[in-house]
């Protein structure tokens, strides 16, 4: 190899090393760093997934418990799975109270209740009726004790003729809002 050739090889090597050092190497390092970050992120995700799967046994126990608790709630819920059905059930209950406690039912209007606790939904209705205080108290007692759970959220009472002769029959005008829970989706988790 002549001196001229040797110099050419030397400068060529320096150029190649320069390009590798200044262009290729930083790019490769950047790619490696990005890949390392991906590896770490993925490792975290996979680790979380494994932990979730390891907790499967505990979850199964919890599902069993919740299932039994849901079954235990059966008597507190309205016997319906739709809003219309639940309103019908509520309406039926109110009419039953009217028959049993001599309430002069004048109006029953379903109210849109947006309260939601999946898988349960809430249905409510407003009722107006006239009665005496005894009938009202018996009706409220029945709502508070008999299944399903009826939740009175508003109560307005007005005496039509207060202070009148005690021998005359007492007439109270009552407006009440009653709600209850029903299972929106019949299937259990």
């Amino acid at each position, binding site marked *: 190899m002549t001196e001229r050739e040797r110099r050419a090889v030397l400068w060529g090597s320096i150029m190649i090393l320069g390009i590798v050092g200044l262009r290729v190497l930083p790019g*490769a390092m950047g790619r*490696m760093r990005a*890949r*390392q970050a*991906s*590896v770490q992120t*993925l*490792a975290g*995700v*996979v680790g*979380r*997934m*494994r932990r*979730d*799967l390891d*907790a*499967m046994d505990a*979850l199964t126990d*919890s*599902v069993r418990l*919740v299932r039994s*608790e*849901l079954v235990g*709630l059966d008597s*507190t*819920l309205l016997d319906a799975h739709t809003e219309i059905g639940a309103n019908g059930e509520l309406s039926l209950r109110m009419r039953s109270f009217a028959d049993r406690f001599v309430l002069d039912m004048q109006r029953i209007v379903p109210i849109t209740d947006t309260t939601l*606790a*999946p*898988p*349960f939904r809430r249905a409510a209705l407003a009722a107006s009726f006239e009665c005496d*205080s005894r009938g*009202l*108290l018996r009706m*409220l*007692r029945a*709502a*508070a*004790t008999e299944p399903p*759970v*009826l*939740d*009175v*959220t*508003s*109560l*307005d*009472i*007005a*005496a039509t003729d*207060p*202070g009148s002769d005690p021998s005359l029959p007492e007439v109270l005008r009552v407006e009440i809002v009653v709600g209850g*829970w029903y299972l929106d989706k019949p299937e259990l*988790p």
Partner: protein
Amino acid sequence: MRPQLSLHLEGGHLLAELRSHRELTWSAGCAVAGADDLESAIIEMGQLPAVHDAKAEIWIAIGEPVLQSRSLHDMPHLSTTDLRLLVGRHSDRYFRKNGVSLVTSARWEQRAQRLRSWRARAVAIEEPWVSAVERGSERAGLRLRSIQPVGQPQLILQSSQSQATQLVRHRRECRRLALAVLLAWLAAFAVLMLRQQSDLAWLQEEEARLTEPARAVSDAERRMHEASVAIATVRQSAQRRGSALRTLASVLAALPDSAYLTTFHWTADGAGAMTGAAPDAASMLASMEGDAALEGPRLDGAAVRDSVNGFVHQRFSIKFGRARP
């Protein structure tokens, strides 16, 4: 530590000593008339089992008359390297040449340097002697560690050919070392990249395998949580039932004889209002205040005296529950 074959050439006599761990294990001596004799002697020593098997390293000290030693005064103040170059270039000025080239070396003498009198010690040996030592060592298969003048252990003598060979060898070793380091780094980089790639592939595979089961578990957990919240909500609602009845019963119990209500309003947050008439609104209010079912009962405005059917009453308006801002 390798055994050491120390050769001492002085006054035409060569003394050889083989030391292993600083203990003398073998020694011999012979007369040496010329460079060829020295080469032959070294080759013969190398063939001796005691020396050859031990793979000893040769250290040789050469004295007079082969060695020429000079004390040089008033030398220009140079570095040691430059001093050696100067002595080498002008060896014919300082030493006898006898028509052969010389191998020289030099050093500054410290004591003289401290006294600012630049004095150097220069030594020279005819190159055939040095070449004979180097050739002999090579042919005997022994490694030559150094050729030193007797009494000047800091000076090393080396033929120009040996220097050139050593320089070439040194450069080659440096190149090889640099190449090896570069290749090692490249190999490490490649291994790291490959390992990263395989890790990434394995993790992606694992993620794909676990995604569906993990999503199912996560979905079940979410639904479980929702169901638990829902159960708690319905239970709270069940515990709250009867609040209207309890409040109304408390109000009715607090009403004295001949008192009555005209209106009653109640909401699920426990707030409400009532109007009516009683003989003494203040005492009625006091009896209501002790009842847990009524939170914070208070008169809404002053009680107004009124007479109904011959009875004197106070008309009142009472609010209860948390006052709204």
